[in-house]
Protein backbone atom coordinates (compact mmCIF):
# COMPACT_ATOMS: atom_id res chain seq x y z
CA UNK A 1 0.00 0.00 0.00
CA UNK A 2 2.78 2.32 0.98
CA UNK A 3 4.63 1.52 -2.24
CA UNK A 4 1.49 2.26 -4.24
CA UNK A 5 1.30 5.71 -2.72
CA UNK A 6 4.91 6.43 -3.56
CA UNK A 7 4.48 5.36 -7.17
CA UNK A 8 1.41 7.57 -7.37
CA UNK A 9 3.47 10.53 -6.22
CA UNK A 10 6.09 9.75 -8.88
CA UNK A 11 3.37 9.50 -11.51
CA UNK A 12 1.93 12.88 -10.60
CA UNK A 13 5.43 14.31 -10.82
CA UNK A 14 5.77 12.98 -14.36
CA UNK A 15 2.43 14.42 -15.43
CA UNK A 16 3.55 17.78 -14.07
CA UNK A 17 6.72 17.59 -16.11
CA UNK A 18 4.71 16.65 -19.20
CA UNK A 19 2.42 19.67 -19.03
CA UNK A 20 5.51 21.85 -19.22
CA UNK A 21 6.78 19.93 -22.25
CA UNK A 22 3.66 19.31 -24.30
CA UNK A 23 1.90 21.96 -26.33
CA UNK A 24 -1.80 22.57 -26.77
CA UNK A 25 -1.66 21.21 -30.34
CA UNK A 26 -0.67 17.80 -28.98
CA UNK A 27 -3.88 17.53 -26.94
CA UNK A 28 -6.51 19.54 -28.85
CA UNK A 29 -9.23 18.08 -31.05
CA UNK A 30 -8.80 19.28 -34.60
CA UNK A 31 -12.12 17.95 -35.77
CA UNK A 32 -14.10 20.99 -34.67
CA UNK A 33 -17.87 21.37 -35.01
CA UNK A 34 -18.82 25.03 -35.34
CA UNK A 35 -21.80 27.24 -36.13
CA UNK A 36 -22.18 30.45 -38.09
CA UNK A 37 -23.37 33.68 -36.38
CA UNK A 38 -26.46 33.55 -38.61
CA UNK A 39 -27.51 30.06 -37.46
CA UNK A 40 -30.30 29.84 -34.87
CA UNK A 41 -30.17 28.52 -31.32
CA UNK A 42 -32.35 25.66 -32.57
CA UNK A 43 -29.46 24.71 -34.91
CA UNK A 44 -27.14 24.83 -31.90
CA UNK A 45 -29.43 22.47 -29.98
CA UNK A 46 -29.34 19.94 -32.82
CA UNK A 47 -25.55 20.00 -33.17
CA UNK A 48 -24.93 19.75 -29.41
CA UNK A 49 -27.31 16.82 -29.18
CA UNK A 50 -25.97 15.03 -32.23
CA UNK A 51 -22.31 15.23 -31.15
CA UNK A 52 -22.97 14.97 -27.38
CA UNK A 53 -20.97 18.13 -26.68
CA UNK A 54 -21.65 21.17 -24.52
CA UNK A 55 -20.33 24.13 -26.51
CA UNK A 56 -19.46 25.35 -30.01
CA UNK A 57 -17.17 27.98 -31.50
CA UNK A 58 -18.93 30.49 -33.73
CA UNK A 59 -17.09 30.98 -36.99
CA UNK A 60 -17.59 33.24 -40.01
CA UNK A 61 -15.31 32.31 -42.90
CA UNK A 62 -12.16 31.25 -41.07
CA UNK A 63 -12.54 33.84 -38.36
CA UNK A 64 -13.54 33.06 -34.80
CA UNK A 65 -16.45 35.33 -33.80
CA UNK A 66 -17.45 33.89 -30.44
CA UNK A 67 -18.47 30.82 -28.52
CA UNK A 68 -21.91 29.47 -27.68
CA UNK A 69 -22.47 27.04 -24.81
CA UNK A 70 -25.20 24.76 -23.49
CA UNK A 71 -25.96 27.42 -20.83
CA UNK A 72 -26.72 29.96 -23.57
CA UNK A 73 -29.02 27.38 -25.15
CA UNK A 74 -30.87 26.65 -21.87
CA UNK A 75 -31.45 30.36 -21.35
CA UNK A 76 -32.85 30.77 -24.84
CA UNK A 77 -35.19 27.81 -24.27
CA UNK A 78 -36.37 29.24 -20.93
CA UNK A 79 -37.08 32.55 -22.64
CA UNK A 80 -38.76 30.71 -25.51
CA UNK A 81 -36.43 32.32 -28.00
CA UNK A 82 -34.74 29.40 -29.72
CA UNK A 83 -35.29 31.16 -33.07
CA UNK A 84 -32.74 33.79 -31.99
CA UNK A 85 -29.59 34.07 -34.07
CA UNK A 86 -26.42 32.67 -32.53
CA UNK A 87 -24.87 36.14 -32.87
CA UNK A 88 -27.42 37.47 -30.35
CA UNK A 89 -26.67 34.85 -27.72
CA UNK A 90 -22.98 33.96 -28.08
CA UNK A 91 -20.11 35.16 -25.92
CA UNK A 92 -18.13 37.60 -28.03
CA UNK A 93 -14.33 37.77 -27.97
CA UNK A 94 -13.99 34.47 -26.15
CA UNK A 95 -10.82 33.55 -24.28
CA UNK A 96 -8.59 31.66 -26.72
CA UNK A 97 -5.40 29.67 -26.49
CA UNK A 98 -2.67 29.42 -29.11
CA UNK A 99 -1.78 26.02 -30.55
CA UNK A 100 1.88 26.46 -29.52
CA UNK A 101 1.08 27.42 -25.92
CA UNK A 102 2.30 24.96 -23.32
CA UNK A 103 -0.35 22.64 -21.89
CA UNK A 104 0.23 24.13 -18.44
CA UNK A 105 -1.16 27.43 -19.76
CA UNK A 106 -4.39 25.71 -20.79
CA UNK A 107 -4.67 24.01 -17.39
CA UNK A 108 -4.18 27.33 -15.61
CA UNK A 109 -6.80 28.99 -17.82
CA UNK A 110 -9.31 26.23 -17.07
CA UNK A 111 -8.74 26.93 -13.36
CA UNK A 112 -8.93 30.69 -13.83
CA UNK A 113 -11.97 31.08 -16.12
CA UNK A 114 -13.93 27.93 -15.27
CA UNK A 115 -14.99 27.47 -18.88
CA UNK A 116 -15.48 23.97 -20.22
CA UNK A 117 -13.54 24.53 -23.43
CA UNK A 118 -11.22 26.96 -25.18
CA UNK A 119 -11.02 27.57 -28.92
CA UNK A 120 -7.44 27.07 -30.13
CA UNK A 121 -6.06 29.51 -32.69
CA UNK A 122 -2.84 29.72 -34.70
CA UNK A 123 -0.67 32.44 -33.17
CA UNK A 124 0.28 33.95 -36.54
CA UNK A 125 -2.88 33.63 -38.60
CA UNK A 126 -5.34 33.90 -35.66
CA UNK A 127 -7.47 31.30 -37.39
CA UNK A 128 -9.34 28.59 -35.50
CA UNK A 129 -7.35 25.33 -35.61
CA UNK A 130 -8.95 23.27 -32.83
CA UNK A 131 -10.73 23.15 -29.53
CA UNK A 132 -9.51 21.88 -26.19
CA UNK A 133 -11.39 20.53 -23.15
CA UNK A 134 -10.18 19.13 -19.83
CA UNK A 135 -11.03 15.68 -21.20
CA UNK A 136 -8.67 16.23 -24.15
CA UNK A 137 -5.84 17.10 -21.75
CA UNK A 138 -6.46 14.08 -19.54
CA UNK A 139 -6.58 11.75 -22.55
CA UNK A 140 -3.36 13.20 -23.94
CA UNK A 141 -1.52 12.88 -20.59
CA UNK A 142 -2.65 9.29 -20.13
CA UNK A 143 -1.39 8.41 -23.57
CA UNK A 144 1.99 10.05 -22.96
CA UNK A 145 2.42 8.50 -19.53
CA UNK A 146 1.77 5.11 -21.05
CA UNK A 147 4.42 5.57 -23.75
CA UNK A 148 6.88 7.07 -21.23
CA UNK A 149 6.37 4.00 -19.10
CA UNK A 150 7.32 1.84 -22.05
CA UNK A 151 10.49 3.89 -22.66
CA UNK A 152 11.43 3.47 -18.98
CA UNK A 153 11.21 -0.28 -19.40
CA UNK A 154 13.51 -0.10 -22.41
CA UNK A 155 16.00 2.00 -20.52
CA UNK A 156 16.01 -0.48 -17.67
CA UNK A 157 17.01 -3.09 -20.22
CA UNK A 158 20.17 -1.20 -21.09
CA UNK A 159 23.26 -3.28 -21.23
CA UNK A 160 25.47 -0.69 -19.52
CA UNK A 161 26.27 -3.03 -16.66
CA UNK A 162 27.37 -5.86 -18.96
CA UNK A 163 31.09 -5.60 -18.33
CA UNK A 164 30.63 -5.31 -14.58
CA UNK A 165 28.40 -8.38 -14.52
CA UNK A 166 30.67 -10.64 -16.53
CA UNK A 167 33.76 -11.69 -14.60
CA UNK A 168 36.91 -12.58 -16.46
CA UNK A 169 40.51 -11.43 -16.80
CA UNK A 170 39.61 -9.84 -20.07
CA UNK A 171 36.13 -9.48 -21.63
CA UNK A 172 35.29 -8.21 -25.06
CA UNK A 173 32.15 -8.08 -27.13
CA UNK A 174 32.42 -8.47 -30.90
CA UNK A 175 29.71 -7.05 -33.18
CA UNK A 176 29.94 -7.97 -36.83
CA UNK A 177 28.10 -6.29 -39.69
CA UNK A 178 28.18 -7.99 -43.08
CA UNK A 179 28.07 -5.44 -45.86
CA UNK A 180 28.76 -8.01 -48.56
CA UNK A 181 27.06 -6.81 -51.75
CA UNK A 182 25.55 -3.91 -49.84
CA UNK A 183 23.81 -1.40 -52.07
CA UNK A 184 24.53 2.29 -51.96
CA UNK A 185 21.16 3.00 -50.35
CA UNK A 186 21.76 0.45 -47.62
CA UNK A 187 25.18 1.80 -46.71
CA UNK A 188 25.18 3.38 -43.29
CA UNK A 189 22.95 0.80 -41.69
CA UNK A 190 25.86 -1.01 -40.07
CA UNK A 191 27.26 2.12 -38.43
CA UNK A 192 23.77 3.24 -37.43
CA UNK A 193 23.08 -0.06 -35.66
CA UNK A 194 26.54 0.06 -34.11
CA UNK A 195 25.81 3.50 -32.68
CA UNK A 196 22.59 2.33 -31.01
CA UNK A 197 24.42 -0.61 -29.47
CA UNK A 198 27.27 1.57 -28.20
CA UNK A 199 24.77 3.90 -26.52
CA UNK A 200 23.01 0.92 -24.96
CA UNK A 201 26.32 -0.25 -23.59
CA UNK A 202 26.56 3.05 -21.78
CA UNK A 203 29.33 4.55 -23.93
CA UNK A 204 29.34 8.35 -23.77
CA UNK A 205 27.39 9.90 -26.69
CA UNK A 206 30.38 12.02 -27.80
CA UNK A 207 32.61 8.94 -27.98
CA UNK A 208 29.88 6.88 -29.67
CA UNK A 209 29.51 9.65 -32.26
CA UNK A 210 33.22 9.58 -33.18
CA UNK A 211 33.12 5.81 -33.60
CA UNK A 212 29.94 6.08 -35.70
CA UNK A 213 31.35 8.75 -38.04
CA UNK A 214 34.56 6.78 -38.61
CA UNK A 215 32.56 3.57 -39.16
CA UNK A 216 30.23 5.32 -41.57
CA UNK A 217 33.14 6.60 -43.66
CA UNK A 218 34.68 3.11 -43.66
CA UNK A 219 31.36 1.61 -44.66
CA UNK A 220 30.95 4.07 -47.53
CA UNK A 221 34.47 3.30 -48.77
CA UNK A 222 33.69 -0.41 -48.86
CA UNK A 223 30.43 0.16 -50.71
CA UNK A 224 31.92 2.59 -53.23
CA UNK A 225 35.15 0.75 -54.04
CA UNK A 226 34.63 -2.89 -53.05
CA UNK A 227 30.95 -3.87 -53.39
CA UNK A 228 30.87 -4.37 -49.65
CA UNK A 229 32.92 -5.89 -46.88
CA UNK A 230 32.69 -6.56 -43.17
CA UNK A 231 32.59 -4.16 -40.27
CA UNK A 232 33.79 -5.74 -37.02
CA UNK A 233 33.56 -3.76 -33.79
CA UNK A 234 35.36 -5.15 -30.75
CA UNK A 235 34.11 -3.53 -27.59
CA UNK A 236 36.28 -3.75 -24.50
CA UNK A 237 35.82 -2.00 -21.16
CA UNK A 238 38.19 0.84 -22.08
CA UNK A 239 38.37 0.84 -25.86
CA UNK A 240 36.42 0.14 -29.04
CA UNK A 241 38.33 -1.24 -32.04
CA UNK A 242 36.71 -1.32 -35.45
CA UNK A 243 38.06 -3.34 -38.37
CA UNK A 244 36.70 -2.67 -41.84
CA UNK A 245 37.76 -5.63 -43.92
CA UNK A 246 37.22 -6.06 -47.64
CA UNK A 247 38.42 -8.17 -50.55
CA UNK A 248 38.36 -5.22 -52.90
CA UNK A 249 40.94 -3.80 -55.32
CA UNK A 250 43.32 -2.58 -52.61
CA UNK A 251 44.94 0.86 -52.29
CA UNK A 252 48.10 1.31 -54.44
CA UNK A 253 49.43 4.39 -52.63
CA UNK A 254 48.30 4.64 -49.00
CA UNK A 255 50.18 7.89 -48.35
CA UNK A 256 48.31 9.61 -51.19
CA UNK A 257 44.99 8.10 -50.15
CA UNK A 258 45.47 9.69 -46.75
CA UNK A 259 45.92 13.17 -48.27
CA UNK A 260 42.81 15.30 -47.72
CA UNK A 261 41.11 15.95 -51.05
CA UNK A 262 42.72 13.06 -52.92
CA UNK A 263 40.07 10.77 -54.37
CA UNK A 264 39.72 8.08 -57.00
CA UNK A 265 35.94 7.89 -56.72
CA UNK A 266 33.94 7.66 -59.96
CA UNK A 267 31.78 10.60 -61.08
CA UNK A 268 28.42 9.07 -60.13
CA UNK A 269 29.64 8.74 -56.57
CA UNK A 270 30.80 12.34 -56.50
CA UNK A 271 27.42 13.53 -57.73
CA UNK A 272 25.85 11.98 -54.64
CA UNK A 273 28.15 14.00 -52.43
CA UNK A 274 30.77 11.34 -51.74
CA UNK A 275 34.30 10.96 -53.00
CA UNK A 276 35.55 14.29 -51.71
CA UNK A 277 38.79 12.68 -50.60
CA UNK A 278 37.86 13.35 -47.00
CA UNK A 279 36.87 9.86 -45.82
CA UNK A 280 40.20 8.50 -44.58
CA UNK A 281 41.30 11.84 -43.06
CA UNK A 282 37.92 11.98 -41.25
CA UNK A 283 38.46 8.49 -39.85
CA UNK A 284 41.91 9.48 -38.66
CA UNK A 285 40.56 12.61 -36.95
CA UNK A 286 37.77 10.72 -35.20
CA UNK A 287 39.94 7.91 -33.87
CA UNK A 288 42.78 7.67 -31.36
CA UNK A 289 44.73 5.15 -33.45
CA UNK A 290 44.41 4.15 -37.08
CA UNK A 291 46.14 1.46 -39.12
CA UNK A 292 45.64 0.86 -42.81
CA UNK A 293 46.91 -2.34 -44.45
CA UNK A 294 46.23 -2.89 -48.10
CA UNK A 295 47.46 -5.19 -50.85
CA UNK A 296 46.48 -4.42 -54.43
CA UNK A 297 44.31 -7.20 -55.80
CA UNK A 298 43.75 -8.77 -52.38
CA UNK A 299 41.95 -6.27 -50.23
CA UNK A 300 42.18 -3.79 -47.40
CA UNK A 301 42.01 -3.94 -43.63
CA UNK A 302 41.37 -0.60 -42.01
CA UNK A 303 41.57 -0.63 -38.24
CA UNK A 304 40.82 2.22 -35.87
CA UNK A 305 40.61 2.45 -32.10
CA UNK A 306 38.73 4.88 -29.90
CA UNK A 307 39.42 4.93 -26.16
CA UNK A 308 36.16 5.12 -24.24
CA UNK A 309 37.73 5.83 -20.86
CA UNK A 310 40.79 7.97 -20.45
Amino acid at each position, binding site marked *: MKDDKISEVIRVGKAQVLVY*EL*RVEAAMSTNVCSVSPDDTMEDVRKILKEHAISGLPVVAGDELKGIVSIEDLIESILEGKTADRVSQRMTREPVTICS*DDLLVRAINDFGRYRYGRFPVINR*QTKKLVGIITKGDIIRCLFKRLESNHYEDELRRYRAGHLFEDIRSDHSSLVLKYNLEGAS*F*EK*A*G*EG*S*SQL*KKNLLRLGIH*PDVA*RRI*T*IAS*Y*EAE*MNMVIFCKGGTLIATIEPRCVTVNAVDQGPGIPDIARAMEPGYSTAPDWVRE*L*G*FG*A*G*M*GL*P*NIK*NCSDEMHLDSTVGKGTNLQFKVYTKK
Partner: protein
Amino acid sequence: MKLREIVNQLQLAVKTGADLLDRDVNGGYAGDLLSDVLAHARVGNLWITLHTHPNIVAVASSKDLAGIIVVNGRTPDEETLRKAAEEQIPILISSGSTYSVVCKLGELGIT
Protein backbone atom coordinates in the same frame (compact mmCIF):
# COMPACT_ATOMS: atom_id res chain seq x y z
CA MET B 1 16.22 28.86 -31.44
CA LYS B 2 13.65 26.10 -31.76
CA LEU B 3 13.20 24.25 -35.04
CA ARG B 4 9.51 25.20 -34.90
CA GLU B 5 10.27 28.89 -35.18
CA ILE B 6 12.55 28.32 -38.17
CA VAL B 7 9.85 26.22 -39.86
CA ASN B 8 7.34 29.05 -39.34
CA GLN B 9 9.65 31.88 -40.38
CA LEU B 10 11.04 30.15 -43.49
CA GLN B 11 7.71 28.48 -44.32
CA LEU B 12 9.29 25.06 -44.62
CA ALA B 13 7.30 21.94 -45.44
CA VAL B 14 7.76 19.40 -42.64
CA LYS B 15 8.24 15.98 -44.23
CA THR B 16 9.29 14.07 -41.13
CA GLY B 17 9.72 14.89 -37.46
CA ALA B 18 6.59 17.03 -36.92
CA ASP B 19 6.79 15.93 -33.28
CA LEU B 20 10.46 16.92 -32.98
CA LEU B 21 10.13 20.66 -33.68
CA ASP B 22 10.95 21.56 -30.08
CA ARG B 23 14.58 20.73 -30.79
CA ASP B 24 17.06 23.51 -30.26
CA VAL B 25 19.12 24.62 -33.24
CA ASN B 26 22.54 25.94 -32.21
CA GLY B 27 23.82 26.83 -35.67
CA GLY B 28 23.79 25.80 -39.28
CA TYR B 29 25.94 24.07 -41.85
CA ALA B 30 25.49 24.15 -45.61
CA GLY B 31 27.21 21.62 -47.81
CA ASP B 32 26.73 18.84 -50.30
CA LEU B 33 29.93 16.90 -49.67
CA LEU B 34 28.91 14.38 -47.05
CA SER B 35 32.38 13.84 -45.63
CA ASP B 36 32.78 17.58 -45.25
CA VAL B 37 29.53 17.74 -43.29
CA LEU B 38 30.65 14.80 -41.15
CA ALA B 39 33.92 16.57 -40.47
CA HIS B 40 32.77 20.12 -39.88
CA ALA B 41 29.10 20.36 -38.90
CA ARG B 42 28.59 20.56 -35.16
CA VAL B 43 26.21 18.53 -33.00
CA GLY B 44 22.80 20.23 -32.94
CA ASN B 45 23.36 22.10 -36.25
CA LEU B 46 20.70 22.40 -38.91
CA TRP B 47 22.07 21.08 -42.20
CA ILE B 48 21.17 22.61 -45.56
CA THR B 49 21.70 20.35 -48.58
CA LEU B 50 20.34 19.54 -52.02
CA HIS B 51 20.73 15.79 -51.64
CA THR B 52 17.63 13.64 -51.29
CA HIS B 53 19.07 10.11 -51.02
CA PRO B 54 18.89 8.03 -47.81
CA ASN B 55 22.53 8.66 -46.91
CA ILE B 56 21.69 12.18 -45.72
CA VAL B 57 19.82 10.55 -42.83
CA ALA B 58 22.87 8.45 -41.95
CA VAL B 59 25.04 11.58 -41.93
CA ALA B 60 22.58 13.58 -39.81
CA SER B 61 22.11 10.75 -37.36
CA SER B 62 25.86 9.97 -37.09
CA LYS B 63 26.51 13.58 -36.28
CA ASP B 64 23.39 14.13 -34.12
CA LEU B 65 22.26 17.09 -36.24
CA ALA B 66 19.04 18.91 -35.33
CA GLY B 67 17.53 18.37 -38.77
CA ILE B 68 17.93 18.69 -42.52
CA ILE B 69 16.62 21.39 -44.86
CA VAL B 70 16.43 20.10 -48.42
CA VAL B 71 16.57 23.04 -50.85
CA ASN B 72 15.14 23.92 -54.27
CA GLY B 73 11.88 22.17 -53.41
CA ARG B 74 13.45 18.79 -54.10
CA THR B 75 11.51 15.73 -52.95
CA PRO B 76 13.38 13.21 -50.78
CA ASP B 77 13.20 9.52 -51.79
CA GLU B 78 10.58 7.40 -50.01
CA GLU B 79 13.39 5.43 -48.41
CA THR B 80 14.96 8.64 -47.11
CA LEU B 81 11.70 9.62 -45.41
CA ARG B 82 11.23 6.15 -43.95
CA LYS B 83 14.74 6.17 -42.49
CA ALA B 84 14.38 9.73 -41.24
CA ALA B 85 11.20 8.84 -39.36
CA GLU B 86 12.93 5.81 -37.89
CA GLU B 87 16.05 7.74 -36.87
CA GLN B 88 14.02 10.75 -35.68
CA ILE B 89 15.59 13.21 -38.08
CA PRO B 90 13.32 16.11 -39.11
CA ILE B 91 13.37 16.66 -42.88
CA LEU B 92 12.18 20.09 -43.98
CA ILE B 93 11.76 21.29 -47.53
CA SER B 94 12.42 24.81 -48.75
CA SER B 95 11.45 26.03 -52.19
CA GLY B 96 14.40 28.43 -52.06
CA SER B 97 18.06 27.86 -52.91
CA THR B 98 20.83 27.06 -50.44
CA TYR B 99 21.94 30.69 -50.64
CA SER B 100 18.50 32.13 -49.86
CA VAL B 101 17.91 29.68 -47.00
CA VAL B 102 21.28 30.52 -45.45
CA CYS B 103 20.58 34.26 -45.78
CA LYS B 104 17.22 33.89 -44.03
CA LEU B 105 18.74 31.80 -41.25
CA GLY B 106 21.40 34.49 -40.85
CA GLU B 107 18.68 37.13 -40.49
CA LEU B 108 17.14 35.03 -37.72
CA GLY B 109 20.49 35.10 -35.95
CA ILE B 110 21.47 31.52 -36.72
CA THR B 111 25.15 31.35 -37.60
